[in-house]
């Protein structure tokens, strides 16, 4: 990835309205020196370059926006445009400040866009280079150099983090935390305690289900066994009684009568059910109502001979049945009124109802005795007969028992016990086998209910487990990220330290200085502070070493690169810079030209010399000497692109800084 600064334009700001073009021989100049005397808006220009590239103006307050307007200006907006190349493809950012609204707007242009697009939308692959922390590195000022050595600052660490995107680890952790918080807000209790409780409840239900299933199986076995024993016992009792000569016949008769009576009961019940199934027999009023219905339907002539279909078909004809033409209005009326008639299908149902009423209800002759009543009486009688037969049988047994047949007595008692027990088992089996009902809880003995509750609880646990597990995973992830981040930082720092120290031997060879370590700030070997010149030298060396790592080529934009350096250091820095970066753009003031610019010239790299100053009464005297072919004038600024003019430019009195 290669990024080059091609120039910028400013209009409507505190700094002069200018267009700065860094292109030289068709490509961005390798070294561009922009000479701007104090008060020309150098700081504003640099800030605007950073804000435009870094997308930071969007958060400015109205006051901050308004601060960029020149005091006596009536401009409603200010526009700052930065032109770049990334991998030789043009990329333009435009920032517009609305002084009235106090807002900032962005536009971007990239290859293939066909023009400027609203928003700050650079290609994805370059975005990270415009991250604020990264911009602060390559748009460099002397303060950063000081901060690199200041133990109260963390600029060195920030510089490393920015270039190597260490901040991504924190962003990953933040995303993971945000997701955890979202899940926590959305779900219910997500603590391990709740999970434990749910798991315990599930375990209990599973255990209970196992027990109930065993009980169910045991109950079925016991039922079968009891029924078998009951049968055997009944047979034994029968055989026993039949074995008693004077009781045999009576007993057999009683049993036969009982069986017959039971059969009668079943038959009578079936008969009665048959009568109940006939609605007209179930209740006389139903019969009357159905007849009443049929009579009224006939009176109403329902269903009519004419159906709704007839009228719908008629509406499609040209002539009515009476011969009159059917216009649109008549057609609509016919269609509306056809709804008052039954459809052919409904007519069919109605006819069928009337027919069944006629056949099933009305044609049946009135009987003296209601069939239902007869069926009820028959059943009642059969029940009575069954009761009597049963009592007869029981009486015989009782007589024998009372007469001393203890064995029979015991068998009868046992039989009663079996019958009671069978009832209990059947009741339990019914509960074991019933379907799930909403409202069932862990006290239920229904197998289906317990299985359903276990499933529901399992689903709930899965949900909670996912949440708890997710939390554990976020913690593990955070730990891994932290360790990786620290390890990465350390490896990078160790590697950088070696490279920076090697370069420092050359840059500050006259005044040797080495770094002991690179941490949050740069720690010097055997000394705690450095001169201004040394600080700047260390800063350049560190940053350019840093920026030179990897495959990317980033320009270095520097404000006052040599102001505080003495001559020899200026020379060294001037010699160093061309090797440290593929593009160097520097804002200088006239006093900085000596030694620094000379050493830059000797690099053999293409240099562009640009001088910018304000058009004011105080600079009026400079106008006649402008090299006409190389000067561009705007309403409030002058831009001169000329090396000789650059080197000889001098203001009689510099204006106050902005």
């Amino acid at each position: 990835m290669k990024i080059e600064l091609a120039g910028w334009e400013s209009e409507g700001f505190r700094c002069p309205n200018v267009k700065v073009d860094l292109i030289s021989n068709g490509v961005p100049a390798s070294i561009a020196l922009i000479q701007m005397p104090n008060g020309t808006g150098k700081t504003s220009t640099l800030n605007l370059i950073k804000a435009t590239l870094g997308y930071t103006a969007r958060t400015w307050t109205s006051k901050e926006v308004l601060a960029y307007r020149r005091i006596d200006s009536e401009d409603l907006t200010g526009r700052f445009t930065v032109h770049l190349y990334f991998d030789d493809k043009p990329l333009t950012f435009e920032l517009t400040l609305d002084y009235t609204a106090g807002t900032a707007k962005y536009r971007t242009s990239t290859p293939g866009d066909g023009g400027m697009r609203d928003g700050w939308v650079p290609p994805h692959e370059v975005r990270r280079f415009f991250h604020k922390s990264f911009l602060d590195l390559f748009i460099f000022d002397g303060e950063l150099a000081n901060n690199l050595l200041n133990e109260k600052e963390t600029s060195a660490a920030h510089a490393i983090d920015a270039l190597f995107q260490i901040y991504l680890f924190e962003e990953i952790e933040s995303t993971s935390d945000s997701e955890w918080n979202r899940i926590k807000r959305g779900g219910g209790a997500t603590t391990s305690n709740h999970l434990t409780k749910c798991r315990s409840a599930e375990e209990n239900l599973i255990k209970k289900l196992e027990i109930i299933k065993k009980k169910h199986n045991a109950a079925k076995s016991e039922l079968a066994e009891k029924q078998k024993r009951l049968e055997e016992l009944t047979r034994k009792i029968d055989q026993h009684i039949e074995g008693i000569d004077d009781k045999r016949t009576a007993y057999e008769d009683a049993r036969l009568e009982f069986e017959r009576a039971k059969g009668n009961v079943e038959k009578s019940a079936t008969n009665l059910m048959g009568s109940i199934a006939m609605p007209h027999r179930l209740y006389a009023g139903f019969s009357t109502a159905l007849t009443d219905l049929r009579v009224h339907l006939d009176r109403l002539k329902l269903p009519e001979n004419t159906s709704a279909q007839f009228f719908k078909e008629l509406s499609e004809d040209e002539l009515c049945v009476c011969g009159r033409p059917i216009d649109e209005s008549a057609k609509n009326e016919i269609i509306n009124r056809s709804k008052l008639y039954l459809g052919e299908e409904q007519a069919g149902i109605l006819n069928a109802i009337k027919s069944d009423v006629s056949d099933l209800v009305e044609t049946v002759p009135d009987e003296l005795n209601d069939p239902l009543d007869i069926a009820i009486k028959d059943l009642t009688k059969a029940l009575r007969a069954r009761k009597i037969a049963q009592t007869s049988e029981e009486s015989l047994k009782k007589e024998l028992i009372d007469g001393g047949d203890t064995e029979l007595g015991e068998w009868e008692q046992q039989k009663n016990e079996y019958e009671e027990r069978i009832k209990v088992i059947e009741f339990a089996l019914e509960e074991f086998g019933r379907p799930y009902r909403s409202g069932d809880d862990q006290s239920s003995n229904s197998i289906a209910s317990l299985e359903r509750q276990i499933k529901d609880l399992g689903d709930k646990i899965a949900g909670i487990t996912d949440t708890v597990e997710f939390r554990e995973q976020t913690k593990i992830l955070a730990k891994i990220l932290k360790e990786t981040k620290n390890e990465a930082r350390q490896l990078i720092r160790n590697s950088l330290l070696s490279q920076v120290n090697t370069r420092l031997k050359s840059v500050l060879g006259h005044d040797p200085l080495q770094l002991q370590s690179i941490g949050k700030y740069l720690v010097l070997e055997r000394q705690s502070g450095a001169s201004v010149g040394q600080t700047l030298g260390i800063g350049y060396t560190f940053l350019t070493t840093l920026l030179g790592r990897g495959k990317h080529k980033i320009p270095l934009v520097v404000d006052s690169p040599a102001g505080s350096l003495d001559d020899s250091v200026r020379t060294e820095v001037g010699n160093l810079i061309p090797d440290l970066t593929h593009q160097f753009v520097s804002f200088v003031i006239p006093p900085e030209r000596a030694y620094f610019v000379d050493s830059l010239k000797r690099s053999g790299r293409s240099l562009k010399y640009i001088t910018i100053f304000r058009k004011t009464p105080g600079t009026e005297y400079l106008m006649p000497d402008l090299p006409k072919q190389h000067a561009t004038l705007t309403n409030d600024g002058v831009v001169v692109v000329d090396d000789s003019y650059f080197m000889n430019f001098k203001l009689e009195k510099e204006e106050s800084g902005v």
Partner: protein
Amino acid sequence: MGFKLRDSATEWFKNVRKQKPFATDFDVYYFCLMAGLAAGRRSPEDVDKESSRDFVQHFVSPYVTYKKLIQGLLLYAENRRMGIELTEKKDVQVTINELFDPEDVTGLTPKGLEALNSYAAGGFDELVEKMGEKPFKAEDFLIRYCDTLRKVASSSDRWWPNKT
């Protein structure tokens, strides 16, 4: 939608349902339906949020033989419920159109089937109120049911004209 039976009705009838002459769930439905029609009682909508199940989509033997009579009773009951005299031709026609659909296997529109289910649900409520705890013996229940239904229908004579 089909014929609906409340879970509570299934539970209440569970003992007799297992015994002859009860053979199908439609037997239970029919008993409830007739009680509902006799009482002129439909279950209020909010009560019908109680869980129920569609148990069958068509009339079941032996009731399919009397399907038209049941439809006739429904038509009669609904006209009476809405205060429509059987002499009001247009209104009766509207009721017929609303209740019957010959294309459907039940012969009823969704509204018609809903009305029938509503009477069945209301009839079950009536049976529980009048007969109390769930029945145990089918033969005893049948006799008591007939007696209960007659009493219920007689007490709402405005619905069903006395046989003359």
